[in-house]
């Protein structure tokens, strides 16, 4: 046993472990250094450092009743708990807790798919069910519904939704927390609470009306620390009969504004799934004149060079779901709208497949779209193909991305907002003396959330120097980036524990009233502060002095 929970004696901890063993069985309580290795964040910036966020123990309950028993024992002994579902939230801390020495409640054994309804289009799952598990269940039972999966499918619908994760189909399914309907939570007292219609004991519509009656606390459990979620219902997209894609290319930089306006219109009419923005300019970045123009936001020069090279300034790839005829009709309508808004727009027919696609169709690597990832995730087929990103490559055969981290700022959903963000991020990079990675005039947004854009920032920091000092310096730089971005109005939507206080600190409107509100609730609901103290910057009184201590 390498560490103890803060302020807990070895005797108290031993007594707590005995009660945990009684709750879940001795074989599912892990305390040795060897057993706890997989409970560390494999990508941590502070790996093997004295402040690494490692647990003191891990426990693996198999039922809600066992979770209740664990929470009651933890309350008795004032042991901080940190719950994980599949523990695969990599880039955002993986399975590691916010407080070193917490006991990890590993919910992986609670892996039952409780219901999939392909007439009323929802599923109910436990936390240990992964996207891959849910997909296989649907396939095995020949059910006509889709899973909206994030890139790596080893995560769980519950864990991903609770960290506000995203997917790639239609807008209302892509927001995974937004697509949840009804949850069951073990509160810090050990009581079980159900949200929405689940609060009505005889309800027959728990997963069809999420608000129930009165104030709905469900949002407190997303990136929250008010309880341990043991069941959730999710809306599922009906399996469509047909999938079609098409790309729109526009010649000039300023064309992005009407392009985004038109895509927004189509998105909010539920005509298209996730739009994928890109540009044709990346190939010109090797040209010194063009690169200087892009870094300097010289639109005239950029447009002239793009025209000379016969490449388009922006593109968007669109997904249509429906029948063969309706998808074709919607693609034709899209062309009509785009031509009205941008007379010089060009179009490329993409793919047109009857659903479900065959394995050969999914694996196809010919034009127009070389990436089969899009064929997988745009129709809810979870996998791990994306894991090439942090892995070895032919160019770097003996290296991997040890500092794999996700940081994305929210941007308004317009072309003007993108242009402003590009300039703002470039100014931050310049101010902080950073090599400019994305911040220039060709950075594209992603539209994971239907109503907002997101742009990455800070990627690559720490990759060039993976020594402890190098990682520490990179983490410090990330904190500066976050702080500078926030001054300009950009906040991040997720963060690893290492940076959660920094991000939370930026949501400071009216003297941090949101944080004060959350912490007032926290102290009332969890007086001993045992449930995930520090999660998303919400610290209970017992641990509040730890705010900002992780540097």
């Amino acid at each position, binding site marked *: 046993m390498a560490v103890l929970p803060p302020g807990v004696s070895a005797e108290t901890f031993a007594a707590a472990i005995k009660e945990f063993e009684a709750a879940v069985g001795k074989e*599912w309580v*892990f305390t040795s250094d*060897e*057993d706890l*290795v*997989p*409970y*560390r964040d*494999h*990508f941590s910036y502070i790996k093997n450092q004295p402040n690494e966020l490692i647990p003191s123990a*891990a426990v*693996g309950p198999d039922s809600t009743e066992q979770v209740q028993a664990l929470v009651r024992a933890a309350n008795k002994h004032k042991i901080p708990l940190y719950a994980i579902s*599949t*523990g*695969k939230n*990599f880039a955002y801390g*993986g*399975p590691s807790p916010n407080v070193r020495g917490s006991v990890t409640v*590993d919910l*992986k*054994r609670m892996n039952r798919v409780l219901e999939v309804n392909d007439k009323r289009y929802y599923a109910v799952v436990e936390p*240990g069910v992964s996207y*891959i598990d849910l997909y*296989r269940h649907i396939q095995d039972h020949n059910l006509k519904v889709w899973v909206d999966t994030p890139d790596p*499918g*080893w995560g769980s619908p519950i864990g991903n939704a609770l960290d506000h994760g995203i997917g790639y189909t239609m807008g209302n399914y892509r927001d995974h927390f937004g697509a949840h309907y009804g949850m069951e939570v073990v509160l810090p007292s050990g009581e079980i609470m159900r949200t929405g219609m689940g609060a009505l004991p005889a309800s027959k519509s728990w997963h069809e009306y999420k608000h129930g009656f009165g104030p709905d606390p469900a949002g407190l459990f997303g990136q929250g620390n008010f309880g341990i979620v043991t069941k959730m219902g999710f809306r599922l997209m009906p399996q469509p009969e047909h999938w079609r894609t098409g790309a729109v290319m526009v010649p000039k930089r300023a064309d992005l504004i009407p392009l985004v306006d038109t895509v927004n219109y189509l998105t909010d009419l539920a005509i298209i799934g996730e739009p994928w923005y890109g540009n044709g300019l990346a190939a010109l970045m090797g040209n010194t004149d063009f690169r200087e123009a892009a870094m300097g936001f010289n639109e005239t020069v950029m447009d002239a060079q793009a025209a000379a090279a016969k490449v388009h300034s922006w593109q968007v790839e669109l997904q249509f779901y429906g029948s063969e005829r309706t998808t074709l009709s919607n693609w034709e309508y899209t062309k009509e709208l785009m031509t009205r808004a941008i007379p010089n727009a060009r179009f490329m027919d993409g793919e047109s497949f009857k659903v479900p696609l065959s394995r050969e169709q999914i*694996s196809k*690597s010919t034009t127009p779209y*070389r*990436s*089969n*990832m899009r064929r*997988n995730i745009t129709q809810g087929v979870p*996998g*791990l*193909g*994306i*894991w*090439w990103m*942090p*892995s*070895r*490559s*032919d160019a770097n*055969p003996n290296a*991997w*991305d040890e500092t*794999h981290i996700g940081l994305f700022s929210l941007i308004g959903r317009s072309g003007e907002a993108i242009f402003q963000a590009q300039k703002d991020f470039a100014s931050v990079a310049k101010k902080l003396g950073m090599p400019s990675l994305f911040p220039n005039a060709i950075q594209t947004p992603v539209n994971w959330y239907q109503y907002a854009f997101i742009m990455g920032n800070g990627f690559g920091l720490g990759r060039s120097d993976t020594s402890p000092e190098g990682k520490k310096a990179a983490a410090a730089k990330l904190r500066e980036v976050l702080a500078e971005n926030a001054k300009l109005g950009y906040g991040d939507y997720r963060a690893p524990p290492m940076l959660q206080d920094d991000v939370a600190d930026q949501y400071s409107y009216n003297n941090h009233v949101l944080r004060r509100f959350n912490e007032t609730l926290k102290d009332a609901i969890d007086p001993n502060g045992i449930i995930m103290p520090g999660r998303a910057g919400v610290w209970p009184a017992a641990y509040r002095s730890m705010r900002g201590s992780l540097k």
Partner: protein
Amino acid sequence: MSAATRTAAIAALTLLFASAASAQQTAVQRGDAKFQHSCTPCHGAGVGDDGRAMLPGTDALRIKYRDAKPPVPALLEQRTDLTAPAIRAFVRNGSFSMPPFRPTELTDAEISDIAAYIADKAKRAPRR
């Protein structure tokens, strides 16, 4: 030992060997199912994402062993050198971008089943 007793003992031994064989077979089958569930999304055959020819785990091992002599297959199911302790070491500790896996995801018994499955697969593979 009477003839009847001897017959009973032989029958019992036969049953014991039969059930041992059956348990071994079951371990291979269990290992197959677990391997397909937990390992193939990264270490299986088939194309990878974003135009890559292989899935990430398979591709990483192709790169790792690209100069190995004698050659080491990129596909785990073609390996002949993967004992249960070796698999366990990789599973519990991770390697490069492969994170470690917890006992709640793969128990030690399941890792042994996977080793039995891979060994069986190697035994059945045509000699190279």
